[in-house]
């Protein structure tokens, strides 16, 4: 039979343990659950930081708290040993009093431990969220994209417009016979355009096409009339490179041959085109002009997209910008392509893609188009 214990002894022993617990627990007392329900997370973070809480301090505190709990409420703790002594109090009444006393102290300890744990865990969570917050202004991660050449962008826009108007996009050779480059376009032998001063010739005597109208002839021969097509592409003229000239540039030529086609349709088509390219408020102006492959011929201007026609630097204060040449297809051209001129009429037009690019992007030196400076190319989309 083990030694009996008195109530007074047990009370003194448990009070001693409780007292040391109180002393050790004092450092956790500042954790109180209440504040966590009252405050918003960002406010809480700010407050905790003001109070000097760091994430590591809170984590250490939680560890310490766990140790404390084990030390005071664990199975092998002094407290557990003390509790076992209750049964050894002989007097039933005193035993009940001792039980009550110890229970009271134990609940006081475990409640406070639990409160402190909850609040510490919450603190850690809050501080960890703060630690893991990111700077959302840092640039997103992605490969540096390349860019399409401005001439490609412009060509695609132009193609999209004309395809939607029922035109087929055609292409053909860049090195041509004199027949397709000149004769078929009603440019007779001896015409200034045929001069080697203006047109590149290969040693074999072929011409680098000086306009994509060559494609019109091929297309009419292939498709016959009626036909609606555009021909975008590279053309070559013997111009010395300067801010407004390149010996190679891009052009788009259009052709519409059908029964009953008139200049009204030419005007309507180009008006529609500039509406779509430059905006619905854009106006067009047609002036009589001369081209060997059209009769009657017209120069086409559109109202300046920048000032709307009142005059500015871009339109050289005239309010108008030159779009290109146009006209009713010359009967000689139609006949060469085996189109019956008693049945069909047609219109044709041509405009410079590079030049339109230069206008739209306000590019004052078109040589930049073929230098392929990546700082230049990256500007267009």
């Amino acid at each position, binding site marked *: 039979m083990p030694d009996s214990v008195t109530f007074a002894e047990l009370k003194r022993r448990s009070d001693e343990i409780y007292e040391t617990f109180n002393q050790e627990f004092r450092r956790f007392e500042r954790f109180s659950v209440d504040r966590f329900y009252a405050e918003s997370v960002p406010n809480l973070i700010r407050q905790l930081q003001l109070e000097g809480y760091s994430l590591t301090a809170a984590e250490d505190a939680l560890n310490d708290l766990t140790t404390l709990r084990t030390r005071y409420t664990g199975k092998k703790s002094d407290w557990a040993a003390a509790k076992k002594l209750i049964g050894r109090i002989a007097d039933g009444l005193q035993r009940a009093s001792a039980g009550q006393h110890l229970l009271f102290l134990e609940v006081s300890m475990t409640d406070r431990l639990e409160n402190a744990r909850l609040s510490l865990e919450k603190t850690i969570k809050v501080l960890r969220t703060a630690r893991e917050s990111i700077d959302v202004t840092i640039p997103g991660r992605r490969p540096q994209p390349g860019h399409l050449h401005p001439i490609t962008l412009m060509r695609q826009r132009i193609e999209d417009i004309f395809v939607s108007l029922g035109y087929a996009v055609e292409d053909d050779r860049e090195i041509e016979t004199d027949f397709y480059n000149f004769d078929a376009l009603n440019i007779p032998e001896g015409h200034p355009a045929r001069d080697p001063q203006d047109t590149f010739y290969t040693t074999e005597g072929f011409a680098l096409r000086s306009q994509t109208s060559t494609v019109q002839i091929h297309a009419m021969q292939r498709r016959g009339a009626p036909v609606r097509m555009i021909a975008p592409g590279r053309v070559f003229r013997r111009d010395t490179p300067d801010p407004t000239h390149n010996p190679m540039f891009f052009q788009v030529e259009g052709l519409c041959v059908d029964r009953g086609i008139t*200049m009204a349709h030419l005007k309507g088509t180009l008006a529609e085109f500039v509406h779509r390219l430059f905006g619905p408020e854009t106006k067009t102006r047609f002036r009589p002009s*001369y081209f060997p492959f059209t009769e009657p011929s017209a120069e086409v201007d559109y109202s300046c997209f920048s000032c709307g026609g009142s005059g500015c630097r871009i339109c050289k204060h005239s309010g108008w910008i030159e779009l290109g040449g146009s006209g009713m297809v010359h009967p000689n051209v139609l006949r060469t392509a085996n189109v019956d001129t008693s049945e069909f009429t047609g219109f044709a037009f041509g405009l410079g893609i590079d030049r339109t690019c230069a206008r739209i992007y306000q590019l004052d030196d078109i040589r930049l188009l073929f230098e392929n400076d990546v700082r230049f190319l990256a500007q267009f989309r």
Partner: protein
Amino acid sequence: MLISCNWLRELIGTKLSPEEIRDRLTNVGLAVDAVEARGDDSVLDVEVPSNRGDCLSHIGIARELAVIEKSQVSSFKFQVKATNGKTGEFASVEIRDPDLCPRYAARTVRGVKIAPSPDWLVKKLETIGQRPINNVADITNYVLHEFGQPLHAFDLARLTEKKIIVRRATKGESIRTLDGVDRKLDEQMLVIADAKEPVALAGVMGGELSEISNLTTDVLIESAYFDASSVRRTAKFLGLHTEASHRFERGTDPAGVIAAQERCVALICELAGGVATEDALDVYPNPIETKAVALRPERVESITSLQVELDEIKRILTGLGFELRVKEASVLSFTVPSWRHDVSIEEDLVEEVARHTGYDKIETSLPPARHAGEYHSSEERKRALRLALISQGFGEAINLSFTELTDDFDLIPALNAETAPVTLTNPIIEEASGMRRTLLPGLLNSIRHNLNYGIRDVSLFELGRVFGSNEAGTLPLEHETFALVATGGLLEANRAQPARELDFFDLKGAVEAAVDGINLPPLSFAAATIKHLRPGQSASISANGGRVGSIGRLADSISAEYKFRQPVFVAELDLTTLLEVKVQPVFYAPLPRFPAIVRDVSLLVDRTVTVAELSKAATDQSVPHFVGVTFVGTYEGEGIPDSKRSVTLRFEYRADDRTMRDEEVDAIHWPLVETLKERFGGEVR
């Protein structure tokens, strides 16, 4: 061309302001670029279309304005007062080459006094930017700007035997022109010669020898009609562009020769004194016939959509000098005025009516719908290709089609090595004398350009044609290719530091992404010796078993030429051929219901054993449940002999009806690995 408003007013008495004249002329196709006030006059800078030589004078412009204003050019009188004798008594004219000079008229004035011109004449010439010289020269210049007929005055005394012979120059002949330059002539140039030697370049410029001087007393006035293309050739050939050649090149009025000369002689008599001959010595062996052009009035509407009254059509055309010949009900026939070389068919007359009715009166409408629009058959795939390449970080470049000729590069197989370049007879950039056979030199130039500006990370691609000579007499080959170049680091958007340096596999990846983008079967790459690529880092590329291009690191020798101090990777592929490869149709494959089991194996093999060989050797064996291998990585360096490397592959196994057990997989996996070990002499690490 400069036009004086006051001068115009003398000719047609217009009340329009200079700005109104500007707008009206512009509307009929004579674009006025600028109006400038000069004293009490205003000067219009008129841009005359190249086919409207008849408008290169005040009368020409006045004629257009008269039709615009529904008025008439006033007929002013001029008459030679003092005449005596026939020109034939004082000079002779012989046209030896009538093909280049259909008409030549000479007239003499004797006893003139060369002196400065009167103020009114000086002022008129100065207003339109002409420099006064002396009375006779100024009068010829004045009449040129009035009538558009260039005239020339010779010092009669200085013409040997007083002869005018119009002929082609002979070999070795030369002439010192009025500008003091000695000019060598060739046998295609037309000259005016006296009995001894050339005294003027026909239609271009006079000679110094017969120039009017202060001592001149007798002058011979030339008024002629020269062949336009002959004058154009001579002027262009000698680089001598004059007021006279400008007009003859565009065609002058063969019928107006005498009237202009009469006007000139009358003014000389009036302002410089002297006695003129009674008539011109006019040599015109084959008079040019008047043309007639028919017009069906309804064609005006069917071509332009303009509805113009018959009377208005007639008014416009007759106002412009056309004469109505036949007045049938349905067809009008007009004779074409001698000054209108640009009119020969019905459409030309329609244009005359349309421009004087006003293009702004033409309505605006779309043609009725006819066809569905269609892109070029290759456009959809080219757009996809471009998008794939830009998303790989490559910028699109465009280079000139002509380049320096070089043999440093292997060409795409479609142009084999023997394909000679297409050369130009007349390059504009001296060193760019041929058509490119490869896009690479252009792109390498672009890299150099960027490096020169301190940009070291450059990835570019280009789509374009290359050219090669064909059999003699046939058009050259044109083939579309696409090429890529890359150097420097792998850039990330908005970040200062490249993620890492680029290597062969970045470029290869871009090429693969590109063909993926256009839905082609994967390309195959095989180590190959390529002229412009560094050995050991170069490959040929094939599609469907046929070679289509090459890829690799630029050879050190070429890099040195371009002064590149960092590796450059290049690739070029035959796009025409690639686009002919059929797109693979897509069919759904059922998804596996059970997970795959994978085994990674690192094989230590000779460096010469390729990943492709290993993969193929594995997949060639038809092992049940074996799905395939995927490349994991290679390792060389510490712990690995120099001649070897370790290749890690992932083997995948799967059954359709169950999750495979480890033992089951091992039973098929290890024998498979064993065959690879045996075949390639490798060992498992």
